[in-house]
């Protein structure tokens, strides 16, 4: 009985006009419940295990810290092959801009483009090094970030990166990022 009712309900939803979402009738006249309850509660530990992203205000940054000097060692071991000795040689993405430049943007590099320093943590801890992603500790991640920022002339040689110092860095081009102003209609933007 139950299975039949469910199948019919799915059909009814499938025929609903575009735009309607979960609201649907059922064949036996019973209203579908406000909550179906399929799925299970996520424990705090479970959430913590996956909730590793970092927000621009620093929310999500773990404890730990790293220096420019430590970061240089990590960079030379784990990043140089793909990003080059000074972060500018490739073969993969150029990470550094320190030259003065004429035309916006001077490459989409950390120093020449990136609006938020916290993005470095969010990205590197998840996606780099590309062949062994997700293997760096918090200390190592902070350190390599300190080194990349140093290469970009954004922090001094004695800088220490941690959950307080990283979000405090003012990236030079943050104010250049503007919301989408395209609206359809007759104006080409």
């Amino acid at each position, binding site marked *: 009985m139950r299975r039949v009712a469910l199948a019919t309900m799915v059909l009814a*939803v499938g025929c609903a006009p575009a735009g309607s979402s979960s609201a649907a009738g059922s064949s036996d006249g019973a209203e579908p419940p406000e909550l179906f309850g*399929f799925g299970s509660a*996520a424990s705090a530990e479970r*959430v913590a295990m996956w*909730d590793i992203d970092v927000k621009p205000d620093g929310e999500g940054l773990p404890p730990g810290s790293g220096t420019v000097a430590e970061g240089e060692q990590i960079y030379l071991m784990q990043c140089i092959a793909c990003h080059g000795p000074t972060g500018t040689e490739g073969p993969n993405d150029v990470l550094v801009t320190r030259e003065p430049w004429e035309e916006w943007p001077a490459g*989409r590099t950390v120093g020449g483009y990136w609006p938020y320093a916290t993005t470095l943590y969010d990205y590197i801890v998840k996606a780099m090094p590309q062949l062994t992603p997700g293997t760096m500790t918090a200390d190592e991640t902070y350190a390599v970030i300190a080194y990349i920022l140093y290469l970009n002339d954004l922090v001094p040689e004695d800088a220490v990166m941690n959950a307080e110092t990283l979000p405090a860095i003012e990236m030079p081009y943050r104010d250049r990022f503007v919301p*989408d102003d395209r609206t*359809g209609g007759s104006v*080409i933007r």
Partner: protein
Amino acid sequence: MASNSRSSISRRTWIAATSGAVAAGLIKTKADAVKLVAQEAPTPPDDPTKVPGRFTSEVGVRAPEERPRRLTRSQTLSSSSRTPLQELQGTITPADLHFERHHAGIPDIRAGRHELLVHGMVERPMVFSMADLKRYPSVARTYFLECSGNGGGAYNRERMPVEITPQALDGLLSTSEWVGVPVSTILNEVGADPAATWILAEGADAAVMSRSVPMEKIMDDSLLAYGQNGEAIRPEQGYPLRLLLPGWEGNASVKWLRRIEVTDRPTMTRDETSRYTDPLKGGLSRQFSFFMDAKSTITFPAYPYTLPDTGWWEIQGLAWTGRGRITRVDISTDGGRSWTEAELQEPILPKSTVRFRHLWNWDGSESLLISRAVDETGYVQPTVQQLWEARGERTAYHNNQQRVWKVGADGAVTFGLGDLV
């Protein structure tokens, strides 16, 4: 050996046909040659009415002469491949030809172990197995999906391509019937805080690709999709679960979705700051430029095709807009001096591709073919000059310029703006 003699005759016929094809100028590309070779084996009977056919099979294959292929790039982990637009019919993209774009390879994920975590500004943080998700009321909708970098190859004034196929230029575009659960259903289930304004969607690939999406879009028409063209989503498209944001740039429709965090601000991930932002003139960069504005392109005749004959030809192509429905496609065969409305294939679905057709009597003179899409907001697909003027020339994302195809007096078709620049 009857069958042998038959096949040798067949082979002779094939060679004759092949050389005929060469003479008629039908072998133009390597792909054409591959097609002809494919006809050779297994050798078909001369008369299929005299030989019993083959048995049923568990999984079908394409006819030997039909060899549509994605156009792949170098084998790197962050890469893409393109849909062969010029070889497809109608509007639906066969799932095995859907374009690919990923940042750390295609993960090997088993549906039985995959889970979606939904947490953040919610009353009840929850985990959903695929079986859980499939038990919710489902919907099926046909939508295009397009990378915002699509067409970018024709934006740079100095590097305008000439010998480029619709696939190479615009093949980061595909259309599927997607099946899944509205994200709004699941957010209702977890009790999302009405004060929440964004979500973060995160993938289970080796890049843990993640994007922030405004809540308004999520509650409007976004799907947690697990079905594609009648079957489970292909691994390349996000198996077993992807976010699907109709009409928005493909990158934000996060594949291999494993986590949704309900938040009150964007996370500013790498792929919404460093990439997928659009530098404008005046030293600014457009961020969260989600909408794919109206576009169209002619897929026939297009490079590398050569019209062998003057006379009647059906110009065909695709038009699409992320802002709703396409209302009109205009065709010009004289470089934009005059326009005629093309015929649109029904049904015209919102945020989906529309096939247009236009009968053209080619008189043999050099002709510039252009398609121009108009959508329900009144937006008219712009020329590249209009885009350069509005945005400057420092971005190639969201290039929806009118595509121009030049038919030479010899019938050869190339991409190009001709004298329009």
